[in-house]
């Protein structure tokens, strides 16, 4: 019993939780993973009930000052929302249009924004942001000042409504917004978002109150079939939802058009954001490579174990490579992300012979036209 820990951004972070009195230890393998039964349970329970995800290592930067909004508009490709509690998903680019960072920006107060990014890229993202910030902005890395617990799943609203008197209804607490709430006397910054594609809330709490909040959630959670969930469950579910990961699926080597992230570019905001000039040059050109989602035909967990840098074939010709892989137990699919370079559209590729090669064996794959999971959770 217990969590199997891994390291993320320097933190000890649960990767998966043992079930059925198994030992929480990795038995490393290039095939079936001994933690598959755990994440099968964790991911299924999240979509059926509610899962508790540990998200504290995500980097958190506070920016304050009168010009914060304008400077963020210059740093970010998306049109940052300047209304209290609004969250904007965005990328930051370098001058050549390469993707330097993949983040969320939330307006916490007037002239006070928080940037939230991946754990592993904390120093990299901080460096990129500070490189372009003027001295008028007060920048503070608050990553280690707060813990973050994610409550995701259809029962998350019912659960949180039992431990807090704030309004969590879909009419009042809309997707992509955030606000201060109180849970048993503890002040919590709650964001209605989800990297796992479910109804849910990210709860940011000061370190000194984190243990208490954790205990309150776990106690009440017993009434809602709450399960602990680790990093593997989160990584699987973000892939089910079609979300990309900087460092695997995107990097300075890709632009947003190739990555299918053009929705996070705002030309209408009329700000010369960093990288805009480069984007305008490629905007209407046909991209040489583009992002795809694939799944292995008739596959079982770990057969094969999909990772990254695996060749993608159209018939006998390599047309690209994979960037992420996971087995989705919820959809029973061995899922892969990647980039391909071919003149054909997804529709045209539907009846073609596509393969992923792993360990010198070719596996027949389907192209996934859209993410396995729909976005309806945002409306609930």
């Amino acid at each position: 019993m217990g969590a199997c820990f891994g390291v993320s951004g320097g933190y000890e972070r649960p990767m998966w939780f043992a079930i059925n009195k198994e030992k929480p230890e990795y038995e490393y393998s290039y095939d079936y993973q001994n933690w598959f039964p755990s994440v099968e349970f964790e991911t299924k329970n999240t979509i059926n009930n509610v899962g508790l995800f540990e998200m504290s290592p995500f980097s958190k930067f506070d920016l304050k000052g009168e010009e914060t909004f304008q400077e963020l508009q210059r740093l970010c490709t998306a049109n940052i929302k300047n209304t209290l509690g609004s969250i904007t998903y965005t990328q930051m680019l370098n001058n050549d249009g390469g993707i330097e960072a993949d983040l969320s920006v939330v307006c916490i107060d007037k002239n006070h924004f928080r940037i939230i990014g991946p754990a592993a890229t904390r120093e990299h993202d901080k460096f990129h942001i500070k490189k372009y910030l003027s001295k008028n902005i007060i920048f503070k890395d608050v990553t280690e000042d707060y813990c973050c617990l994610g409550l995701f799943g259809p029962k998350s609203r019912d659960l949180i409504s039992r431990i807090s008197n704030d309004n969590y209804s879909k009419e009042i607490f809309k997707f992509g917004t955030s606000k201060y709430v109180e849970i048993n006397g503890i002040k919590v910054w709650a964001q209605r978002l989800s990297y796992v594609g479910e109804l849910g809330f990210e709860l940011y709490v000061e370190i000194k109150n984190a243990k208490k909040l954790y205990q309150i959630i776990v106690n009440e959670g017993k009434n809602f079939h709450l399960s602990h969930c680790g990093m593997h469950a989160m990584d699987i579910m973000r892939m089910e939802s079609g979300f990309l990961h900087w460092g695997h699926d995107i990097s300075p080597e890709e632009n947003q058009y190739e990555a299918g992230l053009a929705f996070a570019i705002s030309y209408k905001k009329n700000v010369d954001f960093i990288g805009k000039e480069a984007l305008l040059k490629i905007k209407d050109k046909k991209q040489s490579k583009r992002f795809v989602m694939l799944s292995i035909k008739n596959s079982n967990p770990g057969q094969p174990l999909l990772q990254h840098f695996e060749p993608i074939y159209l018939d006998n010709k390599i047309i690209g490579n994979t960037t992420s892989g996971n087995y989705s137990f919820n959809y029973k699919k061995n899922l892969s992300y990647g980039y391909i370079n071919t003149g054909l559209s997804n529709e045209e590729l539907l009846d073609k012979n596509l393969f992923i090669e792993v360990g010198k064996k070719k596996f027949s794959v389907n192209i996934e036209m859209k993410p396995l999971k729909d976005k309806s959770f945002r409306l609930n």
Partner: protein
Amino acid sequence: MKEIPDNCKVVVIGGGVSGCSTAYHLAKFGWKDTILLERDQLTSGTTWHAAGLVSQLGPSAGITKIRKYSLELYKRLEKEIDFSSGLKLNGALSIATTKGRWQELLRQATTAQLYDVNVEVLNINQIKNIYPIINDQDILGGIYMPGDGQADPIGVTNLLAKAARNEGVKIFQNSPVQKIISKNGRVNGVKVNGKIIECEYIVLATGMWSRQIGEDMGVSIPLYPAEHFYVITEPLNDLPKNIPVLRDFDDSLYLKEDAGKMLIGIFEGKSIPAFNKTNRVPEDFSYGEFPENFEHFEPYLEASLKRVPMLKKAGIRKFFSGPESFTPDTNTLLGEVPELKNLFVCCGLNSIGIGSGGGVGKVTAEWMMRGHINEDLFIYDIKRFQKFHSEVNFIKERVTETLGDLYGMHWPYKQPKTSRNQKILPYHEELKKSGCMLWSIRWI
């Protein structure tokens, strides 16, 4: 004697393979006003004792590109300036004796196709053919890279230094940097032999000294030297001259034929951190070696004799042990540091300095001139680390693991064993004890 200038655009500190390569590429790409300062003689740090293996395939696209380019560069420069880098490309053979390793090699061979690296999958007969002196008893299979091989580390470095000078770089040996000068959070100059040189950029190509140089000025550079061991046999008459470099990962071994002798090196599971008493590399450590540690080497020597039985009759001419720097994840440190503007690092080569030297210098030059890098090279970016990674307590324990990781299994989802529990969540103990299910009835 050349005069050290009062100012220049770039000062590269360190005359090993990465410093010479960086200086060459900066000048080649247009920043001619670059000088290189070497504390003692070129290669005198760690470059001189490198085994000099060159292999093209790395664990990612970016790394493979760096290694492929390195080899191409050495070939090209040898022709351009008619100077030998001692390249001998008899290929390289990697063998597997466990199922997991065999799967790993097959995955590598598969990935190699993405980067046009020629990798052949061999069965035992084919292995025997290209490496007749091998004991194949426990071998499951192997992969062969016909374009790989070895180079002379000193030759490569001098070749790069010559090429750099041809492009206009001024190289000063016996010029130890006493101080790095900064002004308003950015690089301003260096003090060398009592003289100040003003500059816009500094590259720390200072190998195993980098961590302490950084520490002295509040810059976190996470690497630490560990003792690397190899032996060189007496000449063997019947040792075939054209055999490839052999990597026997499961036995932590590499074997390299060199002028009729065999070099047997190891990347063992638990390595020994160097300079254990002081935690600092002495400033004047040149062409330095450590005393013999036969006890540590013996099990690996035995394994090598089992793998290549004919070595049993060879005497050992040279027992070598010397420091090489390792990082927390066995990947190189490149890029601008967050603490000081215009200070770049090109260090932490994890025993792959000759194989990557050409490429890391090119990437460093491009990174400096462009201000960023348009490649997926986060795996090499120093900014993947945080401050605590360079603290002695962390890094010294971690390198006992990362040296061995070079030849250890690169399992999917592998987690480090050493230097854990750096940052603990307030409810860590609760998580540790909790199963996944927080309630009593199993849901299905």
